């Protein structure tokens, strides 16, 4: 059965969201116990379900500064299995490089997550289903989406904490661009740029809203992200049951104003909460973990006052 379309609700009809900030100072730590302990607090409905982890795999990245770190991907997989998921798949469709195999080899995912042939799905070449877009925020009326995404019971956007030279930041919502199949739309998925990046983010997330978001902010990227920026150690994992709330919290940790990020403001009308009073904070506080990220001049207006 295809996945039910998510509920699109204005903020006043939505219950408060929960977001946790956990300190993690390096990838060599055993992240799985900490992640599992935090996920237990969320009481997620994943028992006997198929969970799809959607990391941010952009391109070959031997230093792991661009992509979600494999240690985080492997820890998330282990944690969801411990929570009782019947199957935890890892799937992505890199936007800039057709050679997904080379991308996952470059980050050493196999060394962290074990043999990938049965658990990794290249979403760029997966079978697809045509999905009518309900939000029509962009010019797109419909999209082909991978069958694995449509059939998953529970989707986790497993993003990286990065600035973005067109959208301001790329976090769990923008990460969902990766589900759009390259074999239909190309490398890059240029049709989304032509439709308007900010609006397309809303359309894609409304069609396949992540049920949960985990952002790898142990080492993020600042400046000319999402590929050519500089690594920025931030030492956090930020996770929650509302991708808009998670991304808003990430922006605040980065020293940016989420209300000024166009796609986050749009997403907050239908997909989740942006206002701090509607986000129940767990773990560390934003103030204690705030790590100002450098941004390109075009995005100086996003910076929060010191």
């Amino acid at each position: 059965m295809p996945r039910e379309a998510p509920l699109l609700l204005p903020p006043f009809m939505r219950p408060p969201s929960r977001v946790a900030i956990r300190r993690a100072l390096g990838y060599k730590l055993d992240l799985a116990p900490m992640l599992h302990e935090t996920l237990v607090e969320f009481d997620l409905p994943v028992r006997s379900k198929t969970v799809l982890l959607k990391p941010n795999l952009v391109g070959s990245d031997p230093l792991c500064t661009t992509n979600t770190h494999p240690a985080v991907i492997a820890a998330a997989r282990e944690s969801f299995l411990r929570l009782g998921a019947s199957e935890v798949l890892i799937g992505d469709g890199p936007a800039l490089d057709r050679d997904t195999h080379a991308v996952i080899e470059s980050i050493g995912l196999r060394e962290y997550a074990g043999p990938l042939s049965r658990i990794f799905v290249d979403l760029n070449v997966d079978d697809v289903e045509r999905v009518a877009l309900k939000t029509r925020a962009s010019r797109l009326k419909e999209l082909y989406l991978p069958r694995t995404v449509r059939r998953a019971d529970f989707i986790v956007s497993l993003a990286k904490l990065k600035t973005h030279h067109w959208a301001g930041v790329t976090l769990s919502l923008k990460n969902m661009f990766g589900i759009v199949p390259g074999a239909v739309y190309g490398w890059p998925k240029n049709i989304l740029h032509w439709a308007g990046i900010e609006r397309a983010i809303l359309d894609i997330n409304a069609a396949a809203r992540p049920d949960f978001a985990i952002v790898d902010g142990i080492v993020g990227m600042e400046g000319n992200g999402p590929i050519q920026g500089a690594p920025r150690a931030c030492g956090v994992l930020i996770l929650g049951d509302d991708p808009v709330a998670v991304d808003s919290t990430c922006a605040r940790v980065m020293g940016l104003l989420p209300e000024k990020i166009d796609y986050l403001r749009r997403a907050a009308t239908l997909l989740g909460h942006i206002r701090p009073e509607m986000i129940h904070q767990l773990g560390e506080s934003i103030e204690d973990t705030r790590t100002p990220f450098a941004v390109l001049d075009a995005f100086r207006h996003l910076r929060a006052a010191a």
Partner: protein
Amino acid sequence: MENGSSKSQALGEFEDALAFLERSCLPWLERAQNEDGGWGFAPGSLSRVEPTSWALLALEEFRPSACGDRGLGFLQGSQLGDGSWPAVTGEKKGSWVTSIACLALCRRPEASNVVARGLRWLTEEWPGDSGWRWRLLRRLALRGRVEDRNDAYCGWSWTARTASWVEPTSYAVLALDGSPPDLVPAKARLRLQLAESMLYERMCSGGGWNCGNPMVYGVPGEPQVGPTVWALLALRRNPERPEIQQSLDWLEKNWNRVSSPAGAALSAIALDVLGRRNSISRTSLRNFRENDQTFCNVPVAAWTALALSKQRNWLQNHA
């Protein structure tokens, strides 16, 4: 002695490659064909134009077979009324896969009408970045944010009326350039000139290509194996050009970074076609074969088979 030893090593590799083709690669491709005559990206997945075209190219490179006739039937049945092919069966709009389908069929005389219609569509399908309005808007909107480039050059886009990119442009050049001249519309000459100029201009500094952004915000983009190989094959008629030699140098130097069967197969094809020694690529190809990584999807298996072909029929020009 050394010469004799390297010859026997080469012979051994050749025999090894033939055995792999006959015993593993080609039978695997044949078995992956669906009932409807097409191929999906993986065995058992839904038939699509792109994997069907690559599988056909690979199988027909070595031997005519019933698989080929059934594959031809699938492609003929998938062609849209305007001559294009869709990326997904059932979709009503044509896309970049039209070039690959034409490339797969252009050596079959019985498909000449089908190919001629496909080439006509390709010739008339201008990308969205070729219009004056887009060029003006781009200059205004992106002023100072993207490195300047000559907007008069354009190639082909992935999807209708979006921007030109290196890979779909290269595929279209290969299809138009490799088809019998009587099937190619006269207007294609202009498109080919613009496309080749675009490819040269989009080369990364130092050689090689990525998807089509040699500079972003003043920072040089990194080349990638796939786009580099397809651009090199599209431009192979001018092997003496410094851009080609520089890009081959890049490909040769970066062989040790190739970590995938697709990258190894494509590198081997380009280095071989353009006259560079490619024992390194062939060795890495063998390593992937031994680990069964070749059979991760249909295009990769097809490229591996094409990399092991000595004749290169699929790249022979009719002109």
